[in-house]
């Protein structure tokens, strides 16, 4: 079997061509042949990649190293150094400004790894996201065609229930079941909302899906709307994701032009249209009721539940809210069937999961792998080990509110149920890997700082608890903490979880709780010895 180890993209826009881009490409092919690695490396010409300051550029994945401007005579050296010997030829790297705008989505390529199974990122980075025909050529809009021609709403929901698909936003609620709630709710008007307020630090999978394959989400929302009986949908996209918004906007207008959105789609009784709603910089709006408040033009303060959005959501109407990654699974499930889908992942968590690998590892980026893979596998196979051969100390799974897991837990399979049993949150799929140069108090402080700023302030435990926890951690990091502080932190963490109104507050105390559970000695050293074992904390509060 042929295994692609690296992928090389060469810019071929007019400016690049003028500057010898074709020769660069030809030389690359020749040099790769010369080293006999042509079976391990794919080489492609791509259009405008946005780095107008460094054309022609050569981008090597999975490392996402950008070389440019590359002259035909540099190619031999590049191939030998990077593709053959595996060393980044830093002399030829493009200057620091990078990954803005147009080429950001190409990061999806970083995950093209041997054992990956792609469902939600199947097309991202392969098709032209601004071209609806390209999507259609890649099985696009087949699923909605099948749904409208052959399936009743109940069939759709049954298929989804059978597939075992669970929400990828963090909570892991069975998607098919959620759909039946909305379908069964009383109301002549219903809404379908795609939650693309991907604010969880360390997570950018939804961005890549929206930037690389926007039509798949439109198609999924159409299927959802058909199933639950809705004719109007919203895509709530983070304000920071300008390119994703642009791509989705283009996709919606193309779909409208083709009659895929609008009245009586494909001549059926089904009508559906979509709006984009931009966020404006608030983590809490990823919480579904805060998101609804935001669409209605208010502060993103989560509502009291019940009533749940499935019965009383946007403007008080039954509303389905699904995460981007969840929806991205839907067309594939409809096309290939529930059984096909269940062949991936674990019995309780079928399918794939997109993870973002971050932190002190050799390769950071995005992978889509079957559910149930372990952290150790991720670390050694995809992340290619710790950077600078440092020691793995801990990982945080699932973003800011995720669990901190010590090295001892790295063989737990990463799926909803196994993680739940281990008391760990799978969350959004962010995997922040930390080596032993990181201080747990410092990390906890950074996380608590995040929550005290992102709390909506509606409920007391969250608004005040996060602030108090932060100030306690700050004291500890300055050497002025007390042992009583640790009890207070545990109390705050526990009560945040039990007394807060929404998921943000309920999970905000997780990291500090985990750190005090797994790394208590290190925290106590800050208090009892006035020493930060890793040397990170400045201990500025100590007076000698």
């Amino acid at each position, binding site marked *: 079997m042929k295994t692609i180890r690296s992928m090389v993209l060469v810019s071929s826009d007019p400016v690049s061509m003028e500057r010898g881009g074709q020769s660069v490409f030809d030389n690359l092919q020749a040099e790769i042949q010369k080293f006999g690695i042509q079976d391990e490396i794919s080489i492609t010409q791509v259009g405008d990649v946005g780095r107008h300051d460094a054309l022609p550029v050569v981008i090597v994945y999975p490392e996402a190293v950008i070389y440019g401007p590359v002259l035909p005579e540099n190619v031999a050296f590049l191939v030998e150094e990077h593709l053959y010997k595996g060393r980044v030829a830093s002399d030829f790297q493009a200057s620091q400004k990078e990954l803005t705008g147009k080429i950001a989505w190409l990061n999806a390529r970083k995950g093209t790894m041997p054992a990956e199974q792609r469902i939600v990122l199947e097309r991202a980075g392969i098709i032209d996201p601004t071209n609806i025909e390209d999507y259609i050529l890649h099985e696009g809009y087949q699923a909605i065609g099948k749904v409208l021609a052959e399936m009743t709403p109940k069939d759709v929901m049954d298929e989804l229930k059978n597939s075992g698909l669970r929400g990828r936003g963090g909570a892991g609620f069975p998607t098919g079941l959620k759909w039946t709630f909305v379908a069964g709710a009383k109301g002549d008007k219903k809404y379908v909302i795609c939650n693309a307020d991907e604010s969880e630090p360390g997570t950018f999978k939804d961005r890549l899906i929206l930037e690389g394959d926007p039509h798949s989400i439109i198609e999924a929302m159409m299927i959802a709307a058909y199933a639950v009986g809705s004719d109007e949908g919203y895509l709530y996209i983070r304000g920071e994701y300008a390119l994703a918004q642009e791509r989705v906007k283009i996709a919606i207008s193309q779909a409208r032009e083709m009659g895929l959105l609008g009245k009586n789609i494909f001549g059926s009784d089904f009508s559906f249209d979509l709006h984009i709603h931009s966020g404006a910089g*608030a983590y*809490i709006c990823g919480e579904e009721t805060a998101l609804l408040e935001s669409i209605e033009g208010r*502060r993103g303060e989560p509502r*009291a539940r*019940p009533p749940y959005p499935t019965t009383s959501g946007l403007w008080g109407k039954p509303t389905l809210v699904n995460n981007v990654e969840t929806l991205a699974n839907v067309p594939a499930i409809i096309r290939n069937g529930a059984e096909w889908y269940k062949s991936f992942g674990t019995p309780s968590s079928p399918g794939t999961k997109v993870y973002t690998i971050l932190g002190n590892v050799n390769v950071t980026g995005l992978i889509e792998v079957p559910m149930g893979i372990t952290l150790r596998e991720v670390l050694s196979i995809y992340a290619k080990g710790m950077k600078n051969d440092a020691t793995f100390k801990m990982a945080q799974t699932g973003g800011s509110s995720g669990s901190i897991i010590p090295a001892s837990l790295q063989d737990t399979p990463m799926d909803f149920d196994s993680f739940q049993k281990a008391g760990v949150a799978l969350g959004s799929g962010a995997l922040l890997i930390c080596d032993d140069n990181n201080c747990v108090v410092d990390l906890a402080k950074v996380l608590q700082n995040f*929550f*005290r*700023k*992102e*709390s*909506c*302030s*509606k*409920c*007391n*435990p969250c*608004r*005040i*608890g*996060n*602030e*108090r926890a932060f*100030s306690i951690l700050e004291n500890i990091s300055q050497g002025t903490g007390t042992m009583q502080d640790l009890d*207070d932190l545990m*109390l705050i963490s526990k*009560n945040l*979880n*039990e*007394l*807060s*109104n929404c998921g943000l507050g309920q999970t905000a105390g997780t990291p500090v709780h985990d750190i005090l559970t797994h790394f208590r000695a290190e925290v106590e050293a800050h208090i009892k010895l006035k020493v930060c074992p890793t040397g990170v904390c400045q201990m500025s509060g100590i007076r000698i």
Partner: protein
Amino acid sequence: MYHLIIDDKEIEVPEGTTLLNAARIAGIEIPTLCDHPALEPYGGCRLCLVDIEGARTLQPACTLPASNNMVVHTQTKKVKDARKFVLSMLFSERNHFCPYCQVSGGDCELQNSAYAEDMTHWPLQPNWHPFEVDASHPYFVLDHNRCILCRRCVRACAELVGNYTLGMEERGSKTILVADLGVPLGSSSCISCGVCVQICPTGALIDRWSAYRGHETDIQKTDTICIGCSLGCGIDVLTRNNSLVRIEGDWDADINGGVLCEVGRFLPMADKRQKIVTPLIRKDGSLKAATWDEAMSVVYRKLQPMIGHNEDGVAAIASTRLPVETLDLFKQIFSDKFGSKMVTSTEEGYYTAGLDRSGNKLTHQEGLKAIGKSDLILTIGVDLTNDHQVAGFFVKRSIEKGTKVIPVYTEKTGMDALTPYATLIREGSEFNFVQALSAKLNGEAYEEKLIKSGVPASKLDKIADMLKQAENAMIIYGSEFSAKNKAEVVQAIVQLAKNYHVNYVNFKGKANSFAASELGLENIFAVNNHQVAYLALGDEEPSQLLIQRVEDVPFLVVQASYHSAITAKADVVLPVTNWLEQDGHYISADGIVQKAVHALQPSVDVRSNQAVLENLAAGLQLEINQEWLQSILQSTTAIEVQPA
């Protein structure tokens, strides 16, 4: 009905009842801070968390609907611990040093909650960061240091008053209460209704009179009504040692549901007029203190000969702030017994023109809440942001719920900022406007009528469309019509309303303008050849016009509570009680009879308006009756007596 068990008590509650209310039905108090019965449940403070069997975590009682067979515990260790945690968090957030804080005088719900949980100290270090105090408002002070961010004030300003002055700035731990775009309260869009002050659970919003003035326990509370306008809002008057501490809206009052405006809450507090404490008689050109006997004998002597003089005897005018029984007595004496043809009230028919006796009224059970049930409200001849403000609050707050509000007025009003349908009409063109609207609704030509009003045809079309589509429309009219023939305007409005099955109500005048009108006290006041003018002013401030009119009268008797330009000209001044010192009945604009009771004792030499007139009748040996209610009820179809 749902059956549930709270702390071993079995109760049945209707579907949709929150757990908090279910507990109240069962006689179980659950502590709350952000919740208030007048507001929508919020679920922010988390003090009301309760333990529900089968639930993973504690649940807020204020927002959670009771469900069938629920088993709830409100006193478990888990619940008590949660309450303590929530309180300890609040105490650590800002400056809540109870032992030193006498701001609210024991009326602080945060403090009381802490006592209820036996808290003796702050479990967590308090935050020492001071916040600024906003003392820019003339009536109250905003002290952020005492604020617990419960949003009761913000919600009250929006949900109850519809004024939306207050909001929250920032988020997370930086969150702070603000007005408008972050301006001081004193220069904000605040209309000084003070509902936020009344609803604040701590000492963050405090009025300038009652804060730091001793403990709530030695305060007397009198349940009465406001006589600031003709709505008859229910109020509680708080007094200590016979002095006014503050006035609050009565949350249980049907008419206003606890809401009050500046006129009712703060103007009486800010009243700086000087009270008259003894009768005065003019001697040698200046007013000298006298006894009641001396003063009354002068009055008897002067008035006795006037009995039977229809045209040139006594010209008498009474304030419409006086109780019905007093107005009735006033009428019996001067109209029936003296036979004078110049007996009237201070509104002098100004409001009578805007009265329609067949008009619909708001029932006392529903009070002003009936306004909120309308899907369209058209107001004309009244600016409810200036006059009868509490009714205006009910109109404004309905906008958020989808009611279309169309204020038709000759100038911009406070409503304009909230509704896109504000309609400016030309001075004197109310009749034309109503006529044009009727014509449009009837499908007749209307352009000519409309031109005079200055309203564009497209706007009228829109209004007519909305009226047609409305299922439960209401017209609220006042009597500030700029048109000359006010009666004609009212007729046109009533006709339109009847034709299109639109409810209509009429707010106007002072507390007893309706009663005065029913009693026929509605002439234009004029002193012609009259030898005596008798002014029963009560606590009303005389108008400039009235002062001019009595300029040349040979003999002037004034019964009044306060010194004024008119008492300075009087020959005899009889000191009488103000509204807080007397009992008596009032008939609201839509015909509800309510009793006001005194909250303060008058000074020794001050008598009630009623007593003075009774003395007068007795001294002149005039026979009078007390059948005022009967006589009023006979004269109208639109009166409803508030049950005791």
